[in-house]
């Protein structure tokens, strides 16, 4: 520390400028390594996730063929014969996610357009955090809302016999509300990043605000919007508590949203509540299902990031 600002003398006696980088600061080294270690925990976490899922998943695939797992359409872990056709659970997941997306895509995109193109800065500052509140409500609360408020409402509108108590529709609708902020906030970022000159050019050609929004801003922000939608799907696919409470526990490959179904996450939750013994095939199946779920959300997230980088590169 004392040599700061002075020069060092080399063996030949020539004066050389001080190389600050070569100063030894043991404490600083230690601090930096500790901080690096914190960063490495992220890598360790990913490795641990993959290791847990793969090693336990392989145990499961020793007892039940992987081909039958990925191509089978019947899921009856307690039945005879024991069948683990993950497509039945995947179908449930996709059905609920589709309903959720049907709600969240138009509403989220509409909200994003309003916030980016119409709202005054003052009202945007209030509306945005309030909209974010929707993402802050615990999902078990949404589950309660789906089961005790939305389902009875659907039953009174569509008829008691038409809609079962546990159904994909109410879980999907509520999940859609939950992912509105995901889609709205990322889409709004992408729309705000569209250069003002593009809007002004369109206004100059005589376009109204609606045309500017729908024909200029939204197309220009499309990759960011795509990223937000993919991220929204990934949230819907991984959501557990809403479906565990409201969607039922009947693995059922169907397109009828009024029926009870089971999603991948719902199955994992159900097994963890049940009395399956550790080490049995049906207990190990949660790792195989978890692996499928993890792979799906990972792919969706990577895809979403690819789209985000694209819009960042174009306009920023």
């Amino acid at each position, binding site marked *: 520390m004392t040599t*700061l*600002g002075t020069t060092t003398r080399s063996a030949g006696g020539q004066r050389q400028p001080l190389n600050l980088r070569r100063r030894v*600061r043991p404490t600083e080294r230690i601090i930096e390594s*500790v*901080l*690096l*270690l914190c*960063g490495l*925990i*992220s*890598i360790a*976490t*990913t490795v*641990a*996730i993959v290791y*847990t*899922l793969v090693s336990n998943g392989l145990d499961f695939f020793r007892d039940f063929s992987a081909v039958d797992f990925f191509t089978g359409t019947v899921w009856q872990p307690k039945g005879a014969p024991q069948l683990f056709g993950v497509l039945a659970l995947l179908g449930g997941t996709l059905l609920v996610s589709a309903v959720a997306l049907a709600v969240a895509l*138009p*509403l*989220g995109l*509409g*909200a994003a*357009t*309003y*916030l980016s193109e119409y709202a*005054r800065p003052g009202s945007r500052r209030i509306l945005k955090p309030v909209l974010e*509140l929707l993402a*802050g*409500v*615990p999902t*078990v*609360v949404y*589950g*309660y809302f789906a089961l*005790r*408020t939305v389902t009875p409402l659907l039953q009174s509108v569509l008829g008691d016999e038409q809609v079962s108590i546990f159904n994909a529709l109410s879980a999907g609708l509520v999940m859609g*509300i939950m992912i*509105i902020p995901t889609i709205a906030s990322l889409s709004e970022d992408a729309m705000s990043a569209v250069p003002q000159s593009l809007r002004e050019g369109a206004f100059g050609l005589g376009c*109204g*605000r*609606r045309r500017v*929004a729908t024909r200029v801003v939204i197309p220009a922000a499309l990759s960011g919007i795509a990223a937000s939608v993919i*991220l929204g799907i990934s949230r819907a696919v*991984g959501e*557990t*508590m809403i479906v565990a*409470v409201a969607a039922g526990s009947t693995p059922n490959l169907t397109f009828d949203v009024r029926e009870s179904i089971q999603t991948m*996450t719902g199955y*994992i939750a159900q097994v*963890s*509540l049940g009395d399956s013994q550790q080490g049995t095939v049906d207990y190990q199946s*949660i*790792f195989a299902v978890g692996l499928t*779920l*993890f792979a799906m959300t*990972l792919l*969706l997230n*990577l895809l*979403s*990031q690819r789209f985000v980088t694209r819009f960042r590169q174009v306009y920023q």
Partner: protein
Amino acid sequence: MTTVLEREQRPLTSTKANRSRRLGELSFQGLLLGCTGVGLIVLGILLYTVFNKGGSRLSVDFLTSFPSRRPASAGVKAAIYGSVWLIGLTTLIAVPISVGAAIYLEEMAPRNRFTRLIEVNISNLAGVPSIIYGILALGVVARGLGLGFSLWTGSIALSLLAFPVIVIAARESIRAVPPSIRQGAYALGATRWQVTKRAVIPPARGGILTGCILALSRALGEAAPLLLLGALVFSASVPNDPSDRYTALPLQIFNWINRPQPGFQITAAAGIIVLLGVLFTINGVAIALRRRGPQTW
């Protein structure tokens, strides 16, 4: 807004086409406003139904009673103790590690492929479904490290869940500190750690704190990973140390929702009011902190 619209579209000559175009503009704007409003209306309905159903059940007794077979005397005492323990431990584990990682990535990491790998990895972790963290903790912490279904296991799972969220928020507020501040400190002869500690962290502290609070409040409402970690127990005692078993508020609510007796629906709603009350208070604090910052340069 209307004034802008009017100015922009004041017709040169009043024609039918102009009027219909203006109508189209207005209805489009109304539609968009409606889209923004739907979510908020649903949130309003949710709050109303929950309060309507569970409000009458709220009392000091409810907060200080253990769960019971009879809905009218069931309370959230064990769940509140469990949640406080969980969040306390999660704070102790997650905050230093996540903030440390954020400081490393922003201030110290060399720009190379390895750093890039850590960054991509963290943003992917942020997208991993919470129940996967439950599976991870079940396999590695509960069984691998032999910690069983203890508070340790639960709070490690929640810490891993909060980690990427805190890192991302903390990095953002560290990045908001302009480079000139760092250069000034370097010019005065400070070392890298001194620059970080004295010049970068103090102005970024508010943003980091807000990020931590928001991430921890999310962890507080999280139920999915704890389902796998045996937190859904009927417990008539409070945990005394981190190796005890526990239950948590969201799981207690889940348990009540799943019971067939109608009385438990009221108890569940009352539990939800308690949970939402705590969360909204925490979020309010975070928003107030954000209001006060960010420092302008």
